[in-house]
């Protein structure tokens, strides 16, 4: 079946512009996650969605970052007034709990990422 897809695959923008990154999770997956992969910081957790709610936004670096999820499916990560330090690969993952609830240690399936370059 189809995996997690992300668009665009590459985005080059100028400092100060806003960008939107999109994630389409695996159909039926109720949980969705955003991570950032950068040279200086490695792989960092950004935000977690369960359905359309975000119980944990603790990894968002600043108030310039926001994310939403609609219809329990597609998610958009928005970065306002981009800075050069925002340059990174943004990874989306999704998972589904076993047994009808949020399972323990559910496998997160990752998309290919969006490479963001801020000039």
């Amino acid at each position, binding site marked *: 079946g189809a995996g997690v897809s992300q668009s665009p695959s590459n985005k080059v923008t100028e400092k100060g512009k806003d960008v939107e990154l999109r994630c389409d999770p695996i159909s039926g997956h109720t*949980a969705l996650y955003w991570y950032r992969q950068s040279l200086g910081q490695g792989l960092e957790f950004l935000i977690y969605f369960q359905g359309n709610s975000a119980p*944990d936004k603790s990894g968002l670096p600043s108030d310039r970052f926001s994310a939403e999820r609609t219809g329990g499916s597609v998610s958009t990560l928005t970065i306002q007034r981009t800075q050069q330090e925002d340059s990174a690969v943004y990874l989306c993952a999704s998972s589904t709990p076993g047994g009808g609830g*949020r399972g*323990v*240690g*559910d496998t997160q399936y*990752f998309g290919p990422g969006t490479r963001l370059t801020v000039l």
Partner: protein
Amino acid sequence: AQSVTQLDSQVPVFEEAPVELRCNYSSSVSVYLFWYVQYPNQGLQLLLKYLSGSTLVKGINGFEAEFNKSQTSFHLRKPSVHISDTAEYFCAVSELFNDYKLSFGAGTTVTVRA
């Protein structure tokens, strides 16, 4: 909060030789442990995970890992590598009460040479 240390940033290895990638973690609560692989220009793929039970976990592509609670380690091994195993490998941990949040190590780049 949990943290993960991957002790080797680069591991060169010859084809058909064994490889071990080391991972240590720290946490004040029970943890779940994962190994992911990232092939060039691709997303992360789960190799294996430890949730509970037997401390020796077998994964895909002939990889296995052993959870050692006393040493807080989760080292990954493969007895005989192939050229196609060239990739970056990430160890990750999540905690019992926040098991959705993966914390990753810095990664180990494995380069397999003929």
